[in-house]
C-alpha cells in the first residue's frame, strides 16, 4: 500500500505535467494543422524544378515553410549514441571537476 501510494503520487505529478503540456501546446499547434497533417510532397512541381517557384512559400509543406527538413526520421543512428555520450561526458567533466576545483579554492562558499 505504501509503495502503491507513492506510485500514485508520481502518476499524479506526471498527470499534472501532461495537463500543463496539453493546456499549452494544442492552442498554437492547431493553427498550423487545422486541416490535419499535410501530405508529403515526393516529387517536384514543374515550377519548383525550374526554380521559378518561391520555395519559401511553397504550400507543399507549410509546416516547414517550404524548407525540406530531411526525411521523417533520418536522425538517431549509432552516431547519435556516440554524440550524446560525448555531450554527457563533456558536461560531467566541466561540472563535476569544475565544482571540485571551486571547492578546493573555496571560491564558492556553499559548495
Amino acid at each position, binding site marked *: 500500500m505504501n*509503495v502503491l501510494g507513492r506510485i500514485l503520487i508520481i502518476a499524479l505529478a*506526471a498527470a499534472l505535467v501532461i495537463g500543463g503540456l496539453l493546456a499549452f501546446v*494544442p492552442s498554437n499547434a492547431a493553427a498550423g*494543422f487545422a486541416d490535419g497533417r499535410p501530405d508529403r510532397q515526393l516529387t517536384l512541381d514543374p515550377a519548383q524544378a525550374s526554380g521559378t517557384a518561391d520555395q519559401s512559400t511553397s504550400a507543399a509543406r507549410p509546416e516547414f515553410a517550404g524548407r525540406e527538413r530531411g526525411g521523417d526520421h*533520418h536522425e538517431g543512428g549509432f552516431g547519435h*549514441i556516440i554524440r550524446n555520450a560525448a555531450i*554527457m*561526458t563533456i558536461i*560531467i567533466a566541466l*561540472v563535476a571537476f569544475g565544482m571540485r576545483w571551486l571547492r578546493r579554492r573555496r571560491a564558492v562558499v556553499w559548495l
Partner: protein
Amino acid sequence: MQTVTKAKTGNRSKTNYVVDLIIGISFLLATAPNATGEPIHEWLSMGLLVMVVVHLLLHWQWIVAISKKLFGKVAWQQRINYMLNIGLFIDLTIIMFTGVMISKTVVPLLGLQLPSNLTWRSLHGLASDVGVVLIGLHLALHWDWIVRTSKRYLIQPIVKRLHKPATQLATKEQ
C-alpha cells in the same frame, strides 16, 4: 547528499547502482531510435519508464526530506539538486507522453489510433535533446558517488576475479 541511503545497508547502494546503470544505458539507447529500430525504441523506453519510477521509489526518503525543508534550512547544493530533479521529471514526462502520442508500435497494439501530429513529434526530439543535457548534469552532481560505487561494485569484483587463481594457489600451499 547520500546521507539517507548511507544509513541503509550497503545492499541499497548496490541496488541503486544496478538501477542507475540500467536507466543510464537505456536512456542513451533510447536517444538513437534508428540504431535500435523503432519497435525496440518504444519497448525499451517503456521499460525505462518503469525503471525511472523504481529509481524515484528508491530515493523516496530523499525526496520527502528535501521537499519538507526546501524553503527552510537546507544546503544550496541539495536545493540545486532538487530543482534539477524536478526539471528531469518534467522533461522525462514530456518525452514519454509525446512518445506515446507518436507511437507506431505500442499504442496501435492496444487498438488505438492517434491522429498524427508533427508538434508531438518535434517536441519528442527536442525534449530528448534537453534530457541529454539534464541527465549529464544529474550525473555530474553525483559524480563522486558514481566513482566510489563503481570502484566498489564494478572494478573491485573484476580485479578480485582476475587475482583469484593466485590466492587460491597460495591457500592450498599453506
